[in-house]
Structure formats: C-alpha cells, structure tokens
C-alpha cells in the first residue's frame, strides 16, 4: 500500500446473471477502486449497483470474470477479508429494536474488537458521528440521518480499508447527507477507498471517480468532469419567457436540434444535439426569450450517453376532459395539524393551490410531507384544522372528495399478478366506472400510454417505465380534477422520468391540478410552486426561483435547489 495509486479492488470482465432472468444483472464490468478516492456507483434502480457491491463484499459469486479485493478473492477468502471490508447495506443493517450502543457492541463483538482498542474506537466513532448523546436510544427511534451515521459507525468498526456504502443517501435529508460527505472525505484522507452507490445523479458530481451503470452495463467511467465535457457548450437555459415554461418546453422539443429539455424554474433547460444549433426563434417561443449557455450537470451527460430523449408529446391532453382555466383555488388548508401522541407530524400547515398548478411538497423523509399529503387526499384525518379539496370539505365529506382525486402511491401499488387490463378494470371499478364508460376510459388510456401490446401481461412483470405508465393510467381513468403523486419518480432513470413529466405536463394543460411530493431536489424544478416542509412545519412556499432567491447570498450567488433547501432549513432551525 506504499503506492497510493495502487487499486485496492479490481474487477475484470465481470458478469453476473441470476437464474430465471434473461438479462444479466451485470455484464462486462471493469473497475479499479483506488485508495483516497470516493468511487461513485451511479445509476437508476435495477442498474446493478447493489449486485456489484455485494460481489465485492463476497456475498454473491460472480458468474464470470475476475474480482479481487486487497489481492484476495472475496468469494473464497471472505473470512480473511472480513475486517478489511466495511459493507453498509441499504437500510444500514441496523437492529431497530436495539439501542445505539447495543448495535455498536454487537458489531464490535462480531469483528472481534475488544479491550482497550474497543473503548478508544467507540469514543472516536461516537465523537465522529456526534452520536454520543444518543447511546441509549433505540436505533428505530433515530432520524434518517442519525441512522445513517450509526450504520456508518458500525461499518467502520475494525479497520476497513475498503468501504462499500449502498445508497447511503436514501431517506436522509440534505443537511445530514452533506455531513456524511464530510465524514467520508475525512476517511479517504486516511487512505481508504470508498465505494458509494446512489440513484441520485446529482450525488455523482461529488465523487472523484464515477461509474455510471445502466441495465447492468457501464455507460461511463471516469471523473464527473469528463462527462460534463461531453456536453460542454451544448447546455442552455431558455429564460425571460412570456408563456408558461411548460409550453415553451413543448415547443422547444419540437426542434430536432434539441436532444433533451426540462423545466427549470421560470425557464427551460435544453441540450443541443452535437453539431446542431439552437435558435429560440425556431421554437415559436415569445420573442423576448433569451438563450444562454449554462453549467452542465451530470444528468445532461447521462442523457447524452443514452443518445438523447426522443421528442414525444403526450396524447394525454386529447384524451381527458378539459377543466376550466379559471385560476380558482382547488386545494386550501388552514392550520392543518396531525398529531400522533405528542408528536406533531404536521404542524399548522396552511397552503392554497390554484387550478392547473403543479404544486410540490418538498422535504426529507420524516419531515411530514407524506402526512400532509395523506390528509389532503383523505387517507388520514387531521387532528385539527380545515382542508377543502375541489370545493369539498374533507372533514365532512371525504368520500365525495375522493371521487374527484386521482392518486398514485409511492412505490408500485398495482396488483402484480393481475394483467394490465385487469388492473385498469379494477381501479376503474373502484372509482365507480362501469360498462361503456369504463370501457371507453380504458381504451383512451391504452391509446395514450401505448399499452395495447401489454394488455395481457402481468403488471408485476413489466419494466419499471411501463409500470409507471400503467400506474398513472389507473390514477387518471376516472378523469380526476386533482392528481396526487407520492414520490412518483424516485429511483427511476432519467428517460423514464422525462416521459413521466411529459405526461404530467399534458394533464396540466387540460386544467388538472397536480400535487406532488418528492425528496429529489432537482425534481422540484418541474413544479410551479413548492412548499418546503421540515420537522412538520411548512417553512417556505414559492416558485423554485423565489426559494432560490431567498437563499441567495454573496457567497452563494446562484444556489441550486438543494443549496437553497439547506439554507432555508438551517435558517428556520
């Protein structure tokens, strides 16, 4: 280990297939994990990140190829490598019914850490993670950020040289996430190697070396800046728009010179095809609009690697009935509060949403956004306060309100063993559609979401992108006025995400109101307005640009959504 550039783990020609699956989980993977660096394993859900980490930890056996960690084979020498590899699985591998100290002691004993060394290690790790005050608290009662730190502390017992962290950033608020990065940087300064897997593309930018995985294959390996270089001078921000950015996006994407576009605040972020030029006048946008180059993001490079996003327009707008564009307030809450025992999950939330608006509830897990969300769709009854949804008071007539809402739950909530058609028939029936109305509603959705070839397949066997389409179709069957989306795109690849938002924009054009929760900071950009929720309270509301403006300081002239979030949360606390 005298040479700091000598790889601590190497992978050559690795392939991993699981029985019963026709596509290998990983194929042709080459990787060098270098000491003193954070190697980012980046990709959407199902890309093969966890499989790769488990192979490195010796928990899976490769189908083909070579794998070595510290010169040893993790498959055969797992006992010898036990103390040198620190592996933190998703959910951190903690026992929720044991206290912080009991968890630490368990893993210390398993790693044979005893005596004086154990005491000093505990002291050091408790100080490092700032958990010394909570040693008696059950792990299940810790916040997401604290759990993550405890998980890391348990992984750091012994003296690992290679640290494998599986999605440590999930379910953790941006403030804690930032703190974890600081800790990881301290660790690599000591010469160990860290492999950090993530589905958040923005996290990739913080890594020294990035491996971008998609469907089991490496799309890119190198420094994040190299990926930026691919799209350098091709990323633009279209701003000073007179029309809604959604409309401008639709028009701009009609230009074949554009390969990708997303709404960003009051503007539109566009990527030009290589050797193509973008001219606002070609888009049919208002003449005042300006097009300025902007800093590329990791995701832009990813999209470029995938060859851009096909320009697709949602036919949804033609398939659903028009709601009046009257700017009426369709969701209004007053001091909406939900208590569980002494705990205020939602504390006097007051918000109003206009028709045809996309309103985002943004906040870390456990902040209260899900509780607020569930109160608004009538799934949870508030302890106090009032909520009016689509002109109906939720306290008095919840079921009437529900008929006017469409709801797409977090995670996949369709029946996996029913066919696509059966799922649609069931959900249509649940919203009291029957006979001809049900049939024509299904036909419309099948047409819009191109589900016709899939109608007989079991919903559970569909690829993620199709599952999402189906879930959205089911939520829209009964023509709701308001659409509730609970973390609709977490862990989804950028292409699927684009497609999803194309549909949402199509719905909004017809005057449907959309309420969405997310902990994806960049997703917040798609919203017209955002409510920031932290510790049960709505700490700020406004357009994405408003919130960024509130967080702008001389040191931080152009904050990202995440930076704005951190600034506003810190300020509120």
């Amino acid at each position: 280990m005298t040479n700091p550039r000598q790889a601590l783990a190497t992978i050559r020609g690795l392939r991993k297939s699981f029985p019963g699956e026709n596509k290998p989980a990983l194929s042709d993977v080459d990787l060098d994990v270098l000491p003193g660096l954070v190697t980012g394993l980046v990709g959407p859900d199902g890309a093969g990140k966890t499989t790769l980490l488990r192979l490195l930890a010796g928990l899976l056996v490769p189908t083909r190829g070579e794998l070595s960690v510290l010169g040893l084979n993790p498959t055969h020498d797992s006992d010898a490598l036990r103390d040198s590899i620190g592996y933190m699985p998703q959910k951190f591998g903690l026992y929720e019914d044991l206290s912080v100290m009991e968890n630490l002691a368990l893993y210390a004993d398993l790693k044979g850490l005893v005596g004086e060394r154990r005491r000093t290690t505990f002291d050091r790790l408790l100080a490092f993670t700032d958990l010394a005050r909570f040693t008696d608290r059950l792990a299940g009662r810790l916040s997401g950020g604290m759990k993550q730190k405890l998980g890391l502390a348990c992984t750091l017992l012994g003296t690992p040289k290679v640290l494998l962290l599986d999605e440590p950033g999930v379910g953790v608020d941006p403030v804690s996430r930032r703190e974890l990065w600081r800790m990881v940087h301290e660790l690599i300064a000591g010469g160990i190697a860290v492999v950090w897997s993530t589905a958040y593309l923005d996290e990739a930018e913080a890594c020294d070396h990035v491996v971008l995985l998609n469907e089991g294959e490496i799309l890119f390996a190198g420094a994040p800046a190299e990926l930026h270089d691919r799209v350098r001078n091709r990323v633009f921000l279209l701003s000073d728009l007179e029309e809604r950015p959604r409309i401008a996006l639709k028009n701009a994407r009609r230009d074949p010179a554009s390969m990708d576009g997303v709404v960003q605040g009051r503007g539109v972020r566009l990527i030009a095809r290589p050797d193509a030029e973008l001219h606002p006048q070609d888009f049919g946008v208002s003449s005042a609009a300006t097009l300025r180059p902007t800093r590329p993001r990791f995701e832009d490079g990813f999209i470029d690697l995938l060859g851009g996003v096909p320009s697709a327009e949602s036919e949804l707008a033609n398939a659903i009935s028009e709601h009046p564009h009257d700017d009426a307030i369709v969701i209004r809450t007053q001091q909406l509060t939900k208590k569980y025992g002494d705990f205020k999950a939602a504390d006097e939330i007051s918000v109003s949403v206009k028709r045809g608006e996309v309103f985002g509830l943004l906040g870390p897990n456990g902040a209260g956004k899900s509780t607020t969300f569930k109160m608004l769709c009538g799934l949870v009854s508030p302890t106090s306060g009032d909520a009016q949804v689509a002109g109906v008071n939720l306290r008095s007539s919840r079921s009437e309100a529900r008929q006017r809402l469409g709801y797409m739950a977090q995670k996949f909530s369709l029946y996996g063993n029913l066919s696509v058609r059966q799922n649609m028939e069931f959900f249509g029936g649940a919203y009291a559609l029957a006979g001809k109305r049900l049939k024509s509603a299904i036909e419309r959705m099948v047409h819009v979401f191109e589900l016709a070839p899939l109608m007989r397949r079991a919903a559970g066997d569909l690829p993620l992108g199709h599952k999402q389409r189906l879930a959205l179709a089911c939520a829209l069957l009964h023509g709701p006025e308001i659409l509730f989306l609970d973390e609709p795109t977490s862990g989804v690849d950028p292409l699927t995400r684009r497609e999803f938002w194309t549909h949402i924009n199509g719905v909004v054009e017809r005057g449907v109101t959309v309420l969405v929760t997310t902990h994806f900071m960049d997703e917040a950009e798609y919203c017209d307005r955002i409510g920031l929720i932290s510790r049960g309270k709505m700490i700020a509301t406004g357009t994405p640009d408003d919130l960024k403006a509130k967080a702008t300081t001389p040191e931080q002239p152009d904050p990202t959504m995440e930076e704005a979030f951190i600034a506003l949360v810190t300020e509120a606390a």
Partner: protein
Amino acid sequence: MTDLSLRLRRLWTLCRKETLQIIRDPSTLLIAFIFPGILLFIFGAGINLDSSTVTLGVVLEDTRPQAISLAESLANSPTFRVKTGFDAKQMGDELRAGRVRGFLIVRNDFSERALRQSPGTPSLLLITDGSEPNTASFVAAHVRGAIAVWQREELRRLGRQPTGIDVETRSWFNPSTESRNFLLPGSISIVMTVVGALLTALVIAREWERGTMEALLAAGITRFELLASKVLPYFVLGLISFVICVGLTRYAFGVPFRGSFGAVMLVGALFLGSALGLGLLLSTVLRSQFNAAQAALNAAFLPALMLSGFVFEISSMPPIIRAVTHVVPARYFVVAIQTVFQAGDVWSVLIPAFEGLGLAAVGFLGFTYLKTRRRLE
C-alpha cells in the same frame, strides 16, 4: 484472547442480541406466556369429549308391566333422559328434528319373548342417528348395558338364574375416563408447536427482510453461530413456556401427574428441538416472514392438531394417514406426555417416543444447517 474465547464471545453477543429482541417485542412474550394459558383454558374448560346426558326416545308398543319396567329402568339410568311415546312414526320425526338422539321401540310381543324366552327374533329395535357416529355408538352401548342390567334384575326377581357372561369394565390410567385428563397434556403440543415453530419461523426471515442479514454475513457470521444464536434463546423461551403449561395443567386444572419432573422436561426439550428446527428451516428457505408463518401454520400447527393423536385417535385412521403420522413429531410428543402424566415414567413407551423426537430434531436442525448460506444466493 484465544480464538475459542473470541468465538464464544461472538456467540454470546448474538444470543444476547436475540434475547433483547425477544424481550422488547411484546407479541413474542404474549405468544410465549399468555397464549398457553388461554389455550389450556379452552381445552381444559371449554372442550369436553365426554357425552353428558342424552335424550332417548322410548316407543312403547307393548304397555304391559314388563315393558313399563324396562322403560323405567332406562329412565333411571344417569345417562339418559327418556321421552316416552307410543307411535314409532312420531318418534322418527323427533329424531329428525334432533330432539332425541335415538329411540328404542318396544314391540308388542316384547313381554312374552323377553322373559319366557320363547323363540323368535328379539323384539326391541334401537334407532340411532348415524350422522353423528360417536353419539350413535355411545347411545347403542349404553342402551345395551341398561337392557342387560334390567334383564338380570328381572330374572332375579322371578327367582331364575341369570344367564350369559357378565363383563365388568374398569378403566386404567384415567380411571374416571375424563377427557380433560388426556386433552390437556396433549394440547401442550399445540402450545409448543406455536411457540417453537411459529416464533422461530419469523426470526431468520425477519433478518432477511430488514436487511440485517446482509450486515451479519458481511461481518463474517458462521452458519453455526447464526443457527445457535437463533436456537438457544428460543429454546429457553420455549422451555419456560413448557414449564408454565405443565404447571397449569397439574395445579390449575388438577390433572393427575404420575411421572417424574426429569422425564417431562426431557419430553419438552426434545420436542422443542424439532419444533424450533422446523421453524428455522421454513424461515431459512422462505426468507419472508409472511410466507414462513403461513408455512409454519400448515406444516406444524395443523399436523399437531389433526395428526398427533391428541384429538383424533391414530389407531382409527386409515392406513395411509396412519403412516403419515409417523413423520409428525407432535405424535411422539403426545404419546410421551400423556404417558408421563397418566401412567408415569413407562420407559418402554417413552424411549421409542424419544427416539422419534430426537430424530426429528436432528433432522430438521441438520437440514436447516445445510440450507443456511453464507452468501445471498
């Protein structure tokens, strides 16, 4: 520290962790300590296989003193409440309506034939309800007995020698033939199955579901450590529960106990071994708490109830089912515990039962060991 003491320390810390989890999960304690009490109460006080008084119809086509005397003799029996009638068809309707459990027709030539022993077929006809075979045979046996008693008395009264062989029956081991005395010890098999198999069916699957198994495997836990840390705490929990059951049966329900403490603990310990083994096997193979619990219910609980011989006698089962009962550990447990309670330490019965239980325990635990993987696939 030596290698061995380090290993013992690992095992100890894993057992400690498991115990803490048991203590902090109220549902586990509920199943282990409260559930046995409730179940024993149901079997001890609620379910009773002894038939109490049944209503018997008597149709008197013959109304001479002999026939009346027979009817009175039946009415005096503690087993029957007698409903007298004179029309067989009417009484048939009573049986159909379930108001009588059977009826005896006393033919009009009964008096002559019964006592003067004139030739010809017997003149009594007993109708029973065949849709309830237990009650039917119960009624038939008791009616026959009552008639025999009456016949002897009648002959004696007339100064003649009673004829035929008199069989006196006496029940050993459960002299009062109270069903509770064999039901309660047998029902402990249900409690042990639930505590042993159902609780352990959840524990390994829980580690998989919560993602802690990955962390344990990455920390280099061995197969033996994994299994031992699951078996030992639940073994102790199960034994405590077993002692509670035996104590309740003996002292709260007053079931006579003729064996030794050592023998009964051996029975419990061996059976727990097989129940824990089955639970762990299901948990290891299925890796999902829901599936493992479902499977434990079907693979452990139902056989313990249906095929152990504790409710349904094995000797009256069809040969195929009887063969199947040999692989049901609860069968050996029921034999052993009923023996210890009602007959004492009869080693000629206990040893084969111990062999069956021991084999099942070793089999299930051994198979679990083979099925335990130190990898995720």
